[in-house]
Every structure is written in C-alpha cells, then in structure tokens.
C-alpha cells in the first residue's frame, strides 16, 4: 500500500465519545413546562402520559413518546424518562402529586432518545436505572451521536442538561422487580424494534408497557430486525394483558388489538421489499416505493418509511 500513515489513520480512526459535555446551564428561562406532566391514571396505581406523534423539537420538549409510573406499597417504578431533562423533571413532579414514596427504579425500555434523554433528571431521586443487557453497548456506540444529532432540533437550552446515563441494573431474560406487594415482570427480548427492547408487565393490574415494540399512529421505526419483530408479534399477542401502554399511541390501548396496525405495516413492507429483491431492483430505487400503500394509515410516514425500507432491504437480502 502506497499511502502515508495518516491515511491509515483516517480510515481506521475511531470517533471518540464526546458525550457528557457539560455546559454551565443557562439560568435563563427553559423552554416548556412549568408544571407536572399531565399523566392519566389508567389502572389501580398505574399512570401514563401520552406523547405527541411528532419529531422531537424545542417546541415539544422532546415529549413524543409515552412514559408512565407504577406505585407499589413501598416504592415507585418509572417506565422511561422522556425526551429531555425538562420532561423527566415534569414526570417526577407528576409522581409527587400522587405519592411521596421513593422512586426505586427507572426502567428504560430501549436506547432511543425520546425514551431516555430524561434519565439525568432522575439522578437526584436515587432511582436505579434498569435496562436490557444490550442497552449499555447500544448507548456506547450511539450516545455521542445522539447528543450531536438532536442538537439543532432541540436547541442548546434543552440539550444543555441532557446526558446519556446507562443502566446500572441489567436484565437478561426475565426478571421480577418488587415495589412492595406489587410485582413487575420485566422481559428482555431478542432484536425487534432495537436489539435492546425491554417490556414491563404489572402483575396486579395486568397492564403491559410495551416500549416501542408497539406503535399506534406514529409510524414504527426499524432499528433492530424486521424479521425478529414480525416473529415476536405472535408471542406478544399471547400475553394476557388487560390493557397496554404502547411506546407511541393512545394511553391506554386494548390488547392485543394494539398490534394490528403495525403488523399490517410490517407485512406490506416485507412483501414490497421481497418483491424488489427478487426482481433485482437496487436498494436505492426499491426504498422509494416500498410500503407506500400504508401511507394513509400513519403519521410521520415521510420521516421514517424510507429509512425503514432501507433497513428492511439490507436485512431481507440475506433471506
């Protein structure tokens, strides 16, 4: 090889983590909430907030996904911290309107920023952050990128406090968390929406927090395995839940009907992509039309469908 050493460096260079750049937080007015997050009681001791189906911006404080909490006799578990520290703090304020029991666990359902950019808000609560065994790895390889890439949409004020805080407690397979006469079943799934999806089932009320394994209204996003997700739907629909809190969509939603819309979208997308692959259509062309018939059924279709098609194409080519 005839090129200089620096060139090798350029090729093999590794992007150093630049997460946790802490700016002195401006004492000026922060965007967004002045009060607690408007949560709704959906079952005995179970509360949830429905995010808006939109991209994360400084206008919505990143409040686009569903978050919730469950109150036991001794302690509280929170499911996802939201898309900003502002949202995380508003969620804590909402918890404090219902109970003064300690927040024992903050469960992160997966790696996406809308679900865990609020983690830093929980540091002062002493909550143990709980995540899928693949979550630390996923955050190591994406965390600094997430902090950079959301900067413009969210703005400096909102981003200033946001840090990537990885889980301290890791879930492999299935595990129970006890909140005092109230047990939650946590389950770490195989790659589907991401390779670090974790769901939470409240045994007392049979409320199922699916994380982003279930999308309603907001187009599902592919960041794991389409085939894995399709295969998981049968298992998920067999879960005997009374109601579900999807990652995005109405709080609460009937179960397992909550899975129907995304199931249809996956089938259409997989069918279109498989046909393109069989016909020898290159990826760059195939992704322009795949899944198009599903457009009327979803919000944020333009934002995410081509990306989903791209990921699906790369995966299904190996079938």
């Amino acid at each position, binding site marked *: 090889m005839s090129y200089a050493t620096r060139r090798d460096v*350029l090729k093999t260079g590794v*992007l150093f983590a630049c997460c946790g750049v802490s700016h002195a937080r401006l004492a000026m007015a922060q965007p967004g909430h002045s009060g607690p997050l408007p949560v709704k009681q959906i079952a005995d001791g179970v509360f949830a907030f429905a995010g808006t189906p939109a991209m994360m911006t400084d206008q919505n404080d990143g409040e686009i996904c569903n978050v919730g909490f469950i109150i036991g006799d001794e302690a509280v578990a929170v499911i996802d911290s939201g898309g900003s520290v502002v949202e995380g703090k508003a969620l804590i304020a909402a918890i404090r309107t219902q109970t003064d029991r300690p927040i024992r666990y903050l469960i992160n359902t997966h790696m996406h920023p809308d679900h865990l950019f609020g983690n830093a808000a929980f540091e002062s609560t002493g909550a143990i952050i709980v995540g899928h065994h693949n979550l*630390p790895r996923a955050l190591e*390889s994406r965390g600094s990128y997430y902090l950079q890439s959301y900067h*413009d949409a969210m703005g400096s004020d909102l981003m200033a406090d946001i840090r990537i805080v990885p889980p301290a407690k890791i879930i492999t397979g299935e595990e129970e968390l006890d909140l005092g006469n109230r047990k939650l079943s946590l389950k770490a799934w195989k790659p589907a929406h991401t*390779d670090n999806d974790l769901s939470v089932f409240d045994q007392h009320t049979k409320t199922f927090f699916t994380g982003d394994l279930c999308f309603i209204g907001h187009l599902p996003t592919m960041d794991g395995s389409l085939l894995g997700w399709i295969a998981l739907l049968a298992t998920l629909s067999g879960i005997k839940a009374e109601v579900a809190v999807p990652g995005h969509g109405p709080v609460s939603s009937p179960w397992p009907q909550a899975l129907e819309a995304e199931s249809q979208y996956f089938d259409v997308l997989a069918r279109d992509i498989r046909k393109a692959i069989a016909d020898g259509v290159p*990826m*760059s062309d195939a992704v322009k039309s795949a899944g198009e018939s599903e457009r009327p059924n979803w919000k944020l279709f333009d934002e995410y469908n081509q990306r989903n098609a791209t990921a699906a194409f790369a995966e299904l080519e190996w079938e």
Partner: protein
Amino acid sequence: MFATIELRNPLVAIVLFAFFGSALPFPVWAQNAGPPESTTWNSLKGDVFEQKSIEAANGIVTIDAPKRAEDAAIVPVDLHFKTDATSGRIKAVTLIVDENPSPVAAVFKFGPDAGVTHLATRLRVNAYSYVRAIAETEDGKLHMTETYVKASGGCSAPAMKNTDEALANLGKMKLRVFPAKTTGLASMTRATEMQLMIRHPNNSGLQMDQVTRYYIPAHFIQGLTVSQGDRLIMSMEGGISISEDPNFRFEFDAKPGEDIKVEAADTEGKKFRDEWPLESSGLQESKPRI
C-alpha cells in the same frame, strides 16, 4: 413539523483516535446550511492524494446518493464510469465521506480488462457531509465528483442494528448475478451485473467493553479481491465507513464459463473466501460450489 438536523455545535470536540498512538484533530462540522464550502476536503486532500492535482470529473465518474441519508448506517451510493481513448481506463476509485471520523471509505482498484462500468455500495454517513469519488485514469490523472448528503432526522444512527446477528454469521458471503443491462462488447466477453454481500459488523470499535472499560478495537473488512479465473475484476481497501454487511453491486465484462472468486480479510486477520460458477445470465442467487 419536520426538524432536520444540522451538526454545527462547535463545542462538540471530535478527535481521531489513532491506533498508531497519535491523535489528530477532526475538522469542525459544516457551519452553514446548504452545500457548504469543501473546507474539510481542502484540509484532507493533501493527506490522501498529496500534492497531485485533481480535475473535475466531467462525466468520467458520476456519483449518486440520496440527498437525505434516510438511514445513517446504510446510505446507498452509486458510481458510474465512462472513459474514452484520451483518458484511458479507470485504474482506481477512492470513495470519501468528508465529515466521517474515518473519511476514506474505500479505495477500489480495477483489473486491466475488467471493464467495470458501474459500482454501487453502502456507506455510513455520520453528519451532513460531502460524499466524493476520485477516479484515477490510466494516464495518471485524478478526476473528482461529489454529492452532498444530509444526515437524517430522528433516531437514525450510523451504528449496527443487530450486532449479534452480524457476528454470528461472520464472513458468510452471497453472490447474485443479474441479467446484463448492456450488451457485450466482444464475442468472448459480455457485461454482467453482480452483487457481492459479506456478513461482517464492519464496526468502528466505538463500543466500550463493560467489564474492562476499554474500547473494543475496530473490526472491519480491510481487503477484498474479486476475480474471475486468474483475472482481477476489482480489489478494495476498506474502512469503517463502509456499512455493516458490506455490499457491492457492479457491472463488468464477464468471460463465460469461468468461476468467480472472492477473498476478503478483516482487521483481526480472519480470511474469508468463496467461489461460485458463473451461471448463465438468469436472475438467481449463485450458490457456493462447495
């Protein structure tokens, strides 16, 4: 409202971590909206091509990539080559993503009678960036073309989606042969389009080992050779800006009846090889002979 991202936080310090023990400053992200000045490229050029002058491609090489990187981990890029008697054939093409931590995505070299007219692959694009192709023709001249790719919105990241799957099938290859779009030039050769896929995480080494707290070294395909019989079709020197499960679709002058051979090597010294008979031009997947 759809909010596009623009990476312009000057406070974000990016450095290159060199395995050779030195650290180099990484150029600042693009400061302006729209295709900006090629500031990064101007500082990069000398490192890659030294003082050689680089001309505009004028159609000798053309590049197509989506204006918006829908999936930052998988951005399809298409190169077409068109040479004439004056310039001579294209000997090599260098593919560069200016703003990536490792800008040189790959260097492809073509065999003397390979007749490669089209090459498509997939790249990771970390930020708003120019993606450029520099072709070297037989007369020694360099010809450059570029396109500007905007990072996608939302939670798309240039990282692996399914790490365990990629590792579990490490080195598995698949070759597909497509019906030729163009007719052969001579009776003994004909243009054939092929797609080569290799299972490999091609990762950047960003992950930290949770036990040791050391970064896991980068692990990627660094060398690849595609030949037919004893004839070189193309070789590639690659880096981590090539997407996971590296994928190459290319058109070349095939000789009927001779086997296609692929050899690849990764940064851990693992070697992968496979061989396929070149079947008639039906659209079917070639199966390894053994």
